[in-house]
């Protein structure tokens, strides 16, 4: 019975059916399932499929965002329960578009995928200065600092952030991504990880944390 409902929840996320996702989440909770189990066995498998299809170009940004909307609706119900239960998170990521850059669609998709994979994500928004990355990394006890840039002229700022994090002695992994970023650039600026797209970002984040 649970199994079937969980599968339906995964499908609701894949189809981007927000109302259905909400209803199923409540049904599962009523049936006595724990929030963590619903996240792990309903939402996450659903978002996995979405991520894979996005990576394969079978679906595109609008479909991902619609799926994300459904996931978000379910998460909104689960999150207070997750926080209360102290269930272990996969990890905490603070993420933002770097200073000078105001493009955030790609970053927002990464956030959705990470949340769908069970990460706690703190979104710093756009045009984020190094200080804000530093402060958030400290206050949120982040495992990973993620940076996004769309312009070749702003991607250089990632290096500034990484250098500041190192100078302050923060023990946190760094990940970069965005249209102009290449693996070679990521390596050159000393980033711990690079991902070509949102689905890859999840794999990379997991790999960096060894989960």
């Amino acid at each position, binding site marked *: 019975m649970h199994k079937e409902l969980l599968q339906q929840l995964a499908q609701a996320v894949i189809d981007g059916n927000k109302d259905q996702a909400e209803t199923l989440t409540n049904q599962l909770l009523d049936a006595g399932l724990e929030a963590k189990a619903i996240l792990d066995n309903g939402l996450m498998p659903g978002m996995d499929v979405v991520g894979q299809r996005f990576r394969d*170009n*079978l679906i*595109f940004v609008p479909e991902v965002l619609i799926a994300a909307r459904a996931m978000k609706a379910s998460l909104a119900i689960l999150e207070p329960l997750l926080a209360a239960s102290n269930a272990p998170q996969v990890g905490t990521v603070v993420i933002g578009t770097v200073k000078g850059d105001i493009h955030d*669609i790609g970053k927002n998709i990464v956030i959705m995928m990470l949340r769908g994979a069970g990460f706690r994500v703190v979104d710093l928004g756009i045009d984020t200065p190094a200080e804000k990355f530093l402060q958030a990394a400290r206050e949120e006890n982040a495992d990973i600092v993620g940076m996004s840039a769309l312009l070749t002229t702003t991607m250089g700022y990632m290096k500034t952030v990484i250098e500041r994090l190192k100078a302050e002695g923060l023990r946190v992994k760094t990940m970069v991504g965005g249209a102009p970023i290449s693996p*070679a*650039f990521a390596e050159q600026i000393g980033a711990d990880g690079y991902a070509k797209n949102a689905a890859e970002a999840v794999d990379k984040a997991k790999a960096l944390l060894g989960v």
Partner: protein
Amino acid sequence: MPETRFTVSFLPGHRSGKFPSGTTLRDAALQLGVLIDSTCAGMGRCGQCRVEVKGPASPLTALERELLSPQEINKGVRLSCQAEIRADAVCLVPETSTTTIASILVEGQAEVQEFDPDLQLVKLSLREHRLGETFFEMEHLLQVMAQRGAPVTSYPLSVVQTLPQVLRQGRDVTAVVYRDRLLALESGREAPAVFGVAVDVGTTTLAAKLVDLSEGQVVAVASETNPQRAVGGDVIARVHYLREQNPQNGLKYLHRLVIRAINTLIDRLCEDAGVSPDRIFKLTLVGNTIMQHLALGVDPSALTEKPYTPAVKGPLTVPAAELKLSMHPQGVVYAIANLGCFVGSDITAVLTVLDLERGGAPQLVVDIGTNGEMVLAAGGRIICTSSPAGPAWEGASIEWGTPAVAGAIERARVVDGDVQFTTIARQPAIGICGSGLVDLVCEFRRCGLIDASGRILPPERAVDAPDALRQRLVARESGACDIRIAPAADGRWILLKQKDIREVQLAKAAIRAGIEILLRELQVKPVDLQRVFVAGAFGNHLRGEDAVALGLLPEIPPERIHFIGNAALAGAEAVLTSKVAREKAEHLAQKVAFVEIAEKPEFQDVFVEAMRFPEII
């Protein structure tokens, strides 16, 4: 130990130089002035800078292994941004890496402006000095000109310097006057005709017209690939180059490249028309904001980073000599004013040849390119914005994409259930250029091969598509499908890939989102748009119904869509030949308000919504 330097030469053209070990072939080429296309600014992503290297070089990089085919690797093909010099080498630059655009548009349709240039020839007869009076030639000349209704408030020293020599040949003279500035003095009343040049500095292409300013006739037209392509395909890549890759001399280098290209154009125009460059007294310059900054030698870096600050709006009037342009040394360059940070003087020029203020009926102007610009006029207001569409229209981010060169698939239609296409210059197909891409996507969408979400349907789901088209589908392991278009010379298939559709969706959504935000801003419904003007060379290859089918333009009757070609150059010409047009351009530059769409909270939703294709009616 002295640095080891190796000789590298580039063919064809036989340019060579000595470079230290470790220099990339791209840097060597740039230093030698060998122009190899480099859309991604040397990041190793676009794969356009292929060269064939004879001689040892650094080992292949991972990026090269990804982008080069095994056959290419066997032949010694390298990416010039990746390969570093290790020994003497000869590099063969293939034709495909040095683009000459085949179909460049120079004609724009424009409203005819009255011929009344700011540049005038004033014919004068000066009287002799009578012994005993206080008489100075120059002051006398100025007095006569004022009496003739051509008052002069400034003149260069060179006019005074030539005055005695001119007067030795007689007291009849011709003054060349730009507004209230005396530019030159010539002997006789039958001075040869004076000319002006209108120049549109595009990111990809420069186009120019030579106009007889005594008669008002266009006497020659020419266009030229922008040599800055060797540094980067788009304006952002060029700014990246001058900031990061060559902070010392990058600005000077990019500036000189544009000036050299303009001078090449002027020389060609003059040769065609049998005119001497020193008969050119006026040049009007338009371009997008960054191109105009670079043409004027002004650093545009601040434009690419928040809060996006252009150095100058203009209009600027500059002595030709300051820009080292190949025209009369006292000639003037009039750079038309920009409208907003990414809406440049090229758009001001386009608006100059349209009549947006008449009647107050909503009218929309869209310039489709790597950067899209949109202008909306309604209810007495005119607002504009810009939106980065990316290089898909130029084929750059498309798997089998190519610029509009010979062999590019430029037109395609589904006829009798299968696709038929034509290539530029009727050459064997080498790839797909922007117009071909639009045709293919629209046709496949209409035939049910692509759904509204942009997915190429697998054969079992593309039930509405004709059999011959379904047989062109190639299913990948992931479930994604590509479409076979035509065999290439090497036996592989030229494909339209699922990934390419995504690129088209991004590019068209950027343009459409800009339009939607403007429409909301002035509360105009698409159906109320009385006229929609599509400018730009790419727009000219579009069909109205395709632009709507793609969702690039809102749903409006196709007959309201007008394609006006390179109206920027037409506008530059209007400003060159008509004082009224110049004043109109100056008025518009003050009137048109810039809207920053990315700052709008609804932008993201609008943009994402615009990625889908409209339903087929």
